[in-house]
């Protein structure tokens, strides 16, 4: 009996952990390539959710079908953010960099509230709905599909970074910016690409969870702190690390909430951040 409950808890931890991983890979990619921590990353997820919502509300396009569109849209948002704001603070003091992306976070929340009201919205009838029962273990189909999608997108990103010319150039920029520039790689272009891909990943995560998660302007705040923990645990800049760390953080969050109390689950995850920072600051797979 208790074993069933434990398996149930672990499965839901795994499912949410894969979503955390997808949010975090974009964040870690941006940090790896240009040493900037993007506080507005949760807002890219929020925009992805709204993109799904409006595609559904205005054109009756299901969130799952709208995913490619969401990705394109958020890619554009990421590139625009880079070109208008981030490009100007590349050499600024760290404090300015923190506050620039922090300002972006508040700006995007404010704009969402201004145009779309602070109400919680839901997408009522998605293609994917209902529950799956595997023996004693039950989980929602939307959650399952979202987790599957997260694995697919993260896998595709990994393939892109390791198996294509453009992706390798991006990796090279992350490893050594100056050497990459000497090899003829256009740094500015790579930075813009990192922001586009990073935002698209967060947007896809938003589109995937839009089928079962309430949509509202401040929804990103639920994810950004957890995404930080995942990035730190995985090692700044490591996509594979973020993927593994996402699963670990999801499991710890759900398991900790189950054992200690759901009201403490965020505190448990944040304590993990402190422990990792103090014991192994470079994370699981980070650069030394």
């Amino acid at each position: 009996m208790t074993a069933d409950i434990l398996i149930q808890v672990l499965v839901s931890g795994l499912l949410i952990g894969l979503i955390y991983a997808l949010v975090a890979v974009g964040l870690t990619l941006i940090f790896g390539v240009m040493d900037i921590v993007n506080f507005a990353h949760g807002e890219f997820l929020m925009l992805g959710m709204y993109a799904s919502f409006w595609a559904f509300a205005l054109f009756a396009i299901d969130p799952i079908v709208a995913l490619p569109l969401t990705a394109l849209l958020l890619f554009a948002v990421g590139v625009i953010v880079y070109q208008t704001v981030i490009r100007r603070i590349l050499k600024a003091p760290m404090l300015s960099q923190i506050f620039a992306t922090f300002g972006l976070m508040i700006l995007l929340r404010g704009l969402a509230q201004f145009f779309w009201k602070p109400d919680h919205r839901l997408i009522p009838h998605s293609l994917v709905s209902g529950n799956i029962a595997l023996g004693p273990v039950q989980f929602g189909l939307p959650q399952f599909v979202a987790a599957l999608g997260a694995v697919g997108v993260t896998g595709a990103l990994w393939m892109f970074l390791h198996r294509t010319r453009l992706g390798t150039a991006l990796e090279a920029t992350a490893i050594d910016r100056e050497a990459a520039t000497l090899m003829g790689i256009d740094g500015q272009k790579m930075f813009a690409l990192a922001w586009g891909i990073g935002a698209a990943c967060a947007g896809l995560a938003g589109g995937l969870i839009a089928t079962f998660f309430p949509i509202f302007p401040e929804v990103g705040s639920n994810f950004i702190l957890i995404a930080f923990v995942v990035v730190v645990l995985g090692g700044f800049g490591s996509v594979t690390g973020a993927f593994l760390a996402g699963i670990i953080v999801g499991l710890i969050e759900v398991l900790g909430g189950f054992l200690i109390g759901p009201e403490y689950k965020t505190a448990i995850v944040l304590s993990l951040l402190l422990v990792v920072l103090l014991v192994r600051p470079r994370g699981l797979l980070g650069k030394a």
Partner: protein
Amino acid sequence: MTTGTNSSRKMAGTAALLALAAVLPLAITEPSQQNFLILILMGAQMGVAWNIVGGYAGQVSLGHAVFYGIGAYSSTMLLTTLGLTPWIGALAGGLLAAVFALAMGWPCFRLKGHYFAMATIAVAEIMQILVTNSDALEGAVGLYLPMDRSGWGSLIFLSKLPYYYVILGLLVLTVLVSWAIERSHIGYYFRAIKDEPEAARALGVSLTRYKLIALSVSAFLTAMGGSFYAQKEMFIDPGSVFATTISIKIALIAILGGVGRLMGPVLGAVILITIEEYSRTLFGSTGSGTDMIIYAAMIILVAVFSPSGVLGLLGDLHRHWGRHLPGAKPDEVKTSTKEARP
């Protein structure tokens, strides 16, 4: 760094500013406007306190709400349960916050830059969750101060004027501490830690020790600001004193005015609180998001165009125009492009 006439001119300017601040509420008698002035002084006090660790020592804390909250909860609990006067309660809260800062800084100061900033956010968020779930501290319900016990002993007043002078006094104290540090050898060590940590270490300066001094002094003063908040609002809950938005606002006030400059945060508070309050009254606060948009646009503009804050911008202008004036010494204004580097 500065000539004698320049520093005496600065002293005269500060005295004039203080005299103006002392008589201002006699001219502005409308309670809501007096409240606005109090909010500016509160913001300035927090910013000057943050500046000691975030500006001079260059250790960017984004978790100062933890000290603010400790101050607010300490003095309030001591008043409501033991009937202890907030005059002592605020000191107790300050000491508790300073001890907490030592405990938190000891491990966290091994981290640099972004990592330290993130660790401070995590500490404050964890604290907010713990207090929210603590029955002894009334959890999410919050604490009320006894309104019926007004007077100077309980530091509870039914009019705004006494609050104004209390926070003005606290601001003056905070500026004096900050000024004393800036001028002492500790201040030189702080700047050395910020600008050339390796060189400072090579010369035998204990980095951790001086970072801990900066954080605990800053925590002490921030906690006193938190106690004042509780006295003025007569109600506190975890969301109003421990939230990360407060930590961010504290740091923002300093960076907006000019990080690492004595009066930078005061200017920052005047600008930030004015814009915050006016955009709120002009556009309404009820969820339209307009105040957030203006606030955010301002943050981004300062971050992108003026990393050394408004004071830095004024300094640059002064230097630029000063060159064209007869007898001007361009060296009088120190540039600050390196001020906020990690």
